[in-house]
Each structure stands twice: as structure tokens, then as C-alpha cells.
């Protein structure tokens, strides 16, 4: 019986690097497709965002290994080294995000019938969901 998952260090490290490489591949692929469609600024934004996520994940991993006592929930999750409470916080915030995304998509759908530009709605949705994810994470983390 174990209190936390104890994957081997090699497996954990390999999974983390695989996740980073997969994330980078998706960001770069998406940026390339958007750039080819003639939206160079948006493509640059996607690349910048992708790199920012990678840097934050690397910082979290470094912090959770060098200053484990001061690392927060987000840092341990980003580093791929969460304990059971971190996973509970992650699960709880994703559950909130799931419910809010259903509500937001319903409202967005209704808004298009009221004449709101669909492109604007679709493009603002990722930001609304990202904001929801951050707020949900902070609230659940403080309450758990």
C-alpha cells in the first residue's frame, strides 16, 4: 500500500519530457498552420504561449526538486511530481472547468442567435476557459 504513486524516476522523467515535446509539437504545428493561413501575428502568439508554458513547467520542475519545501501545488503538478492532495486539487479544478465550459458553450451558442459575431466568441473562448481554470485552481487549492 502506498500513499502516493511511486513511478520510477526514469519513467516519471521520461513521461515529463515526452509531455513537453508533445506540447511543443502541437504548439509549433498549430502555429505553422495558422502562419500558412496568413495570420503571422497569431502564429507568433501561439509560439510565445507554448514556450511560456514550457518555461513555466521547467521552472516548476526545477523548483520542486531544488526547493521542494517551498514549491507550491502548481509547481509540483507542472513538474510531474504531485502528491495525493495536489492531484485532488487538480481533479477538483478540472471538474469546475468542465461544468463551466458546458455553461459557456451554451451561452456562446445562444449569443450567436442574438447576433453576436461567432468568430469573436470562438476566439475569446480559450481565454475565458483559461481564466476559469486559473480561478478554479486557486480557489480549490486554498480550500483543500
Amino acid at each position, binding site marked *: *500500500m*502506498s*500513499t*502516493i504513486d*511511486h513511478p520510477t524516476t526514469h519513467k516519471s522523467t521520461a513521461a515529463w519530457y515526452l509531455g513537453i515535446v508533445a506540447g511543443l509539437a502541437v504548439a509549433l504545428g498549430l502555429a505553422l498552420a495558422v502562419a500558412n493561413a496568413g495570420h503571422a501575428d497569431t502564429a507568433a502568439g501561439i509560439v510565445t504561449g507554448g514556450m511560456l508554458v514550457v518555461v513555466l513547467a521547467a521552472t516548476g520542475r526545477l523548483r520542486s526538486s531544488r526547493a*521542494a*519545501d517551498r*514549491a*507550491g*501545488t502548481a509547481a*509540483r503538478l507542472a513538474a510531474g511530481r504531485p*502528491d*495525493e*492532495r*495536489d492531484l*485532488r486539487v487538480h481533479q477538483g479544478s478540472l471538474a469546475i472547468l468542465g461544468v463551466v465550459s458546458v455553461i459557456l458553450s451554451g451561452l456562446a451558442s445562444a449569443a450567436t442567435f442574438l447576433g453576436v459575431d461567432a468568430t469573436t466568441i470562438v476566439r475569446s473562448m480559450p481565454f475565458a476557459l483559461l481564466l476559469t481554470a486559473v480561478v478554479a485552481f486557486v480557489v480549490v487549492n486554498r*480550500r*483543500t
Partner: protein
Amino acid sequence: MRNEIRQLREERSLSQGALGTELGVSRQTVNSLETGRYDPSLPLAFTVARFFGLSIEEIFHVDD
């Protein structure tokens, strides 16, 4: 759920970080356990009980 973790930890002059290391969890998790904001999984409850040499019932109490 109430628990005696803080008292037991202080009796042994352990910091939250040190107890967390012994239990395989973070300092924040120990803090959340002590303040009752987080109820541990059954495996973690067993680990806590084993570490302090007590039974789960002696450490964790259900709020009535």
C-alpha cells in the same frame, strides 16, 4: 474530520516539512491535514498511523 496530527507532530518536535518528507507528501499537505481542510486517502491515513505507532481511530475522529 478532526485529527491529532499537529499535536503528535509537535510532541516529536517535527516541522511540517519534515513530517511531510517522512510521509511522502508535501508540507502543504501536512498543513491541510492539520487544519482539517483535507481528509487523507485511506493509504495515507494508514501511513500516518504507522508513523506515529497508533491506530487510525486514535488519530482521526469523525465530526459528529
